[in-house]
């Protein structure tokens, strides 16, 4: 699993990247009440908006950590947005993207680097 400074995570299986927000991000946001996931088939570029997550007070963009084509969105989140709080780095994933460039994934932080980054916040 790899991480961004914007608190997204990516897990790679073959060329399919599963994307979500980190436990730290979920805790900071507070109770999530709404998640807008992307339409499958949409092409996203790294750094662009992928999804929107809304807690009671604030709405935030979730940025795509890698470029590629969206092949699946986590439909379950629309009925159970609290999953993002309960299992942020598991069942609370947002979307699956077919990775265009594996080097993009490799360039992201690993767990140790991300944990070190959190220490600086």
């Amino acid at each position: 699993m790899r991480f961004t400074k914007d608190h997204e995570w990516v897990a790679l299986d073959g060329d399919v990247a599963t994307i979500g927000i980190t436990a730290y991000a979920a805790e900071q946001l507070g109770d999530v009440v709404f998640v807008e996931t992307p339409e499958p088939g949409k092409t996203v570029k790294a750094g662009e908006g992928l999804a929107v997550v809304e807690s009671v007070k604030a709405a935030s963009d979730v940025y795509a950590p890698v470029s590629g084509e969206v092949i699946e969105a986590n439909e379950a989140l629309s009925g159970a947005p609290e999953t993002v709080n309960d299992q942020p780095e598991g069942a609370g994933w947002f979307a699956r993207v077919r990775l265009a460039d594996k080097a993009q994934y490799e360039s992201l932080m690993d767990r140790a680097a991300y944990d070190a980054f959190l220490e600086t916040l």
Partner: protein
Amino acid sequence: MSLNNVGRPTRPTPAASTAHTSLTGARGLLQDEALIFEMGGWDKTGVDLAPADLDASDLGDLVRTAPIGLPGLSEPETVRHYVRLSQKNHAIDLALYPLGSCTMKHNPRLNEKLARLPGFADLHPMSPVSTVQGALALMDRLAHWLKTMTAMPAVALSPKAGAHGELCGLLTIKAAHEAKGQSHRRIVLVPTSAHGTNPATAAFVGYDVAEIAQTEDGRVDLADLEAKLSTDVAAIMVTNPNTCGLFERDIIEIARLTHAVGAYFYCDGANFNAIVGRVRPGDLGVDAMHINLHKTFSTPHGGGGPGAGPVVLSEALAPFAPAPWVVSDSKGFRLVEDTVDEASAGFGRMVAFHGQMGMFVRAYAYMLSHGADGLRQVAEDAVLNANYVKARLSGAMSAAFPDGPCMHEALFDDHWLEGSGITTLDFAKAMIDEGFHPMTMYFPLVVHGAMLIEPTETESLQELDRFCDALLALAAARAGDVERFTGAPYLAPLKRLDETLAARKPKLRWLAEA
């Protein structure tokens, strides 16, 4: 994702309250009020009607034979229900209100008296112009005051609220760009601390929104602005004083840079109340600015309206203003409509008629009763009161921008609560038990756990002290008394509500129990 957007915890924390509880669940004379449908029965009524003496009906078999389910109550039951509901509203007429003018500042009773004069209150928007000369004269005078205070040559009075004014401003800017063959400009720049309505308005008009970064001391980052300005930018939207309660000290440079690339400068005038009579936006290079009459000129606001958000416009934008506006000649006053040549360059109109007459009367009454010197003092007192609160609370709470004075709002972050187990939300809820409505929480988003206090100009030193004393007492109680906060409010008719559940599974309709 951007973690500037710090949400707030909302799940109630169960706390073992040692407070006295009553047998019925009532809280003294503060009654938990049922819905009128739950109280009434169809077999009760407050009025006696003679039996309808109908032999036949044209409705045939459509005549109802079953009860229709409307609640029936006696007159005293009805009166009590609504009086009890009204007592659950917190109001500026009950206490200092730290949300400030964003929600409500004191509405002088003189405004209300004048707005109720039959010559204003009983007008119909389609009355012949010859019969409403006084009302048109008032609109003309109000426009004159607004233009004079802002040093701007034109004003659109018709927008019905601040956000509606933003829409009016951006539509005017769009019309101006189109007239110059500049329709390719697609970007509107908005600082990270902006009111949410700014990017929403820009997106609604069809622009792409880009953010401008903020400096450490809470102002627009000039270097970032300069990097993002280009001939693709249609406008920037900057609030001044900004949502952190700070004056944008580089405002003239911001305007110069914006104009240098051919873009327009929209100023969100929500906080004009802090500078009215002291600073004229026209002198700063502003092209368009809305003025929330409720914030600056004390008209009522609560409940979403009726409001008024006039937009003042620069020389460059004035030709594109929406109709109608008031003009006068030897025959008296009249409204210029969008069907005539005089308004042909304008983008159309914002509303069906001329705007909120009742708000115009109240705002003009406020202006005349204060005079130019009085309005200047309003701004000075608002700023002085906020700085007094900031100074008194800064020892115990952490000011978000400790260096230098603030404008009309004192902004604190939650740094001082770190490690206490208490959040901004908990602290705000505990204020309710102490008899004060919470301040603005978790806004602006650029400040962690923000607490934004706007006392407004009308509070006396004694009242400000009473408020500060209560907050200082709460701040001192945070160590060793966490439950006072995490379970608060204890003394409200309903305790901590589950806002998350309400947002996720709202009950929008009452249904009779089966």
